[in-house]
């Protein structure tokens, strides 16, 4: 039976391991036990020393490397990282993830790309690890994990409000009855057997719930726990002096992310920062909702349309239109290092649209100017400045679904809208369509300075 902490490092077992072994001092020291374990891992590639983590810090970095390469690198080879899927690694792994979380939590915001990477990679690792277990063991582990994480007999959907709130789980993906999330077969049969006609109830259970939903809940809960821990560290950080070792690891993680975010061989589907092509804006490819916003909005929807929708749309469309394809987060300065494009092109457009509103937005509500800057990731400040970057998040454009709820009067879908779920995807698609329909806006020229607009 594998250790629970192999999957959930934030279990009490995991906490015990940290308490017992978690001295920051030895973190950079070569650890023979770890070396041996890595070499012994099934199908581990050992042809090159660099494949092998030599200490806890190394192991933390390997996790980052694994996740980014798995996602972005076409030449990714699982055997380079087989040790991560070796259950025997559990104790080392626990120490390494706590180290990572502390290093990141001290230096960065939990919502930074470093923070998100940690959370996402942990979720992915849980999935990969479960997948590699023998079916019987897998079931057993899953049940144990659930029992530990969920103390009541039945999980109430309301106890998952954090997962719902962070969109890690969709309510509609679960089978609910009387407020309970139905997970166990027996329970399912008791509740629903009478209702099912013409089908085998057991099979219905396997199709609708089975182990899938349980595993999904587990991996999402562990992600949430990781995020919460990160948050906790981050909140404590100003109160205690950070250990220099942690700061160093934080720095190394950040470097690693930069280094591995772009793989030339990956055919443009690079991760964080990959495949970024800032190009001139092409207003004829803007979706209807954005066009309407630029023309000006009446008082009801005005603030959200400018501050939330337009600000994020224009900045991403100009700087990082492929953000969704790459699933990563980014900072404006990754693409616009001296903020010249942001200050000279993007912000003026937003302010102009704000002026077109009725009544003009900033006359009424000067505070909203600060909010625009905040939504670009520069905190609540008058101007975007590098030293403030990261104080807030660079907001991605809200989805069409959200727009339909919050700003319904702006959504006047056309044919292209049918194929997309976000105004930014509309923009990408439409540009592509325009290019291919022989429209005389060749992509080359729109990237050069010959733009006549």
């Amino acid at each position, binding site marked *: 039976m594998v250790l629970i902490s192999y999957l959930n490092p934030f279990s009490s077992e995991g906490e015990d391991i940290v308490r017992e072994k978690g001295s920051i001092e030895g973190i950079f020291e070569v650890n023979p036990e770890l070396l041996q374990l890595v070499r012994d891992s099934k199908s581990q590639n050992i042809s090159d020393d660099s494949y092998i983590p030599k200490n806890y810090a190394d192991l933390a970095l390997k996790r980052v490397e694994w996740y980014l390469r798995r996602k972005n690198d076409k030449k990714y080879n699982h055997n380079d990282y087989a040790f991560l899927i070796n259950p025997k690694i559990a104790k080392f792994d626990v120490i390494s993830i706590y180290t990572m979380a502390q290093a990141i939590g001290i230096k960065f915001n939990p919502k930074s790309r470093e923070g998100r990477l940690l959370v996402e990679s942990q979720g992915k690792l849980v999935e990969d690890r479960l997948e590699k277990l023998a*079916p019987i063991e897998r079931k057993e582990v899953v049940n144990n994990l659930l029992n530990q994480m969920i103390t009541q007999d039945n999980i*109430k*959907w*309301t106890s998952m*409000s954090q997962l*719902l*709130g*962070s*969109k890690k789980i*969709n*309510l*509609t*993906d*679960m*089978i*609910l*009855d*009387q*407020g*309970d999330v*139905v997970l166990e077969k027996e329970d399912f049969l008791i*509740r*629903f057997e009478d*209702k*099912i*006609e013409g*089908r085998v109830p057991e099979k*219905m259970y*396997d*199709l*609708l719930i*089975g*182990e*899938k939903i349980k595993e999904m809940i587990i991996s999402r809960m562990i992600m949430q726990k990781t995020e919460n821990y990160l948050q906790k560290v981050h909140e404590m950080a100003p109160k205690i002096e950070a250990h220099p070792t942690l700061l160093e690891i934080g720095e190394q993680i950040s470097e690693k992310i930069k280094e591995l975010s772009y793989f030339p061989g990956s055919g443009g589907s690079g991760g964080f920062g990959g495949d970024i092509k800032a190009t001139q804006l092409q207003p004829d490819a803007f979706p209807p909702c954005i066009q309407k916003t630029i023309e000006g909005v009446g008082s009801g929807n005005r603030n959200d349309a400018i501050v939330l929708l337009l600000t994020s749309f224009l900045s991403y469309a100009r700087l990082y239109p492929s953000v969704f394809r790459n699933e990563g987060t980014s900072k404006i300065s990754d693409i616009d290092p001296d903020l010249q494009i942001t200050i000279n092109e993007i912000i003026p457009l937003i302010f102009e649209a704000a002026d077109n509103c009725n009544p003009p937005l900033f006359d009424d509500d000067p505070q909203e100017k600060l909010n625009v800057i905040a939504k670009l990731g520069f905190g609540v400040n008058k101007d975007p400045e590098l030293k403030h970057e990261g104080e807030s998040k660079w907001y991605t454009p809200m989805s069409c679904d959200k727009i*339909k*709820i*919050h700003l319904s009067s702006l959504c006047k*879908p056309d044919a292209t809208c*049918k194929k997309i779920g976000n105004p930014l995807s509309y923009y990408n698609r439409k540009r592509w369509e325009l290019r291919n329909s022989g429209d005389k806006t060749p992509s080359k020229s729109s990237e050069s300075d010959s733009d006549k607009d």
Partner: protein
Amino acid sequence: MFEPSTLEERRRYYRDEWNVNDLPDFIRKDLSKREFGFDHLGRGPNDRYRVFKTPDMLKRFMRYRSPFAAYCSVAFYNKPRKRGEWLKSELVFDVDAKDVPVRSCGCDSVCEICLDEARQIVAGLIDTLKQDLGLKNIHVIYSGRGYHIRILDETAMGLDSEGRSQVLKYVVGAEPPKNKYFMEDESGQKPYELEHFSIPLGYPAVFTKRIKYAILHLNGTEKMEEVNPKLMKDVLKYREMVQKDEWGLFKNKIGPIRYRNLVEGISKLNMGLVDAKVSIDLKRILRMPTSLHSKVSMRCMEVKNIETFDPLKKAVPKFVSERKGY
């Protein structure tokens, strides 16, 4: 019927008919933790952030000012006067008869028919809120032109906006359930096709009910991008099969791709059954039960039994029945 009321009528109402003791318990309790807002001139609530320490103070205010409209917050605050220290909010669904996207009457504001259809929709939503989501402490308020479902279940009052929007999507059926399912340990296999109507439980069952309601109440003029006039015509032609729950036959008549389009289209319409903004807003103010909806001269009131409630019998103030020609 449904005419605005004059200041004189409002005064009469608040003097002779209105009684602060009629306020529902869920409002009287913790009255001082809510924010109140008023509309004195019929131009929207701009007298906001008011707080009443006791029902008696509210009573005096209402008698003296006879406002055009009165509202109170769904949120509870420690310092309601500044909306400070938010504690929790009721979970709310607002079904306004005039905005219901599928109405067989086709009228352009409100009539008896769409008021009653709003009532049926509300009953359906409550059913799901109880059955599936297990929520308790659910109150229904007739708002004067529709219904508010106000949920004071402690487990739900702490939900954030995103959580609320997920609940909303679940209960109205705003997303088609997936129709391809995989068996355990059979990855790589072809998926099983299982339409929502062949799954008699969970969200697919909720969705089936909502779709059924919509199909049976379409009047043919509804605009859905996914549904062209020809498809709409066929849906109306074959809809009695849906009435009889012969979904398989219905889907055959329509064809699988067009069926998917129809389901997509209706799920988007369903989103409009409830005013989503109200549901996800934690600091909303809602019309105060017992107060007068002056635009239509109806009383906003708690509904004890939604199955039998008839606003035209219960929510009409005296001064209206005494109006000439009523």
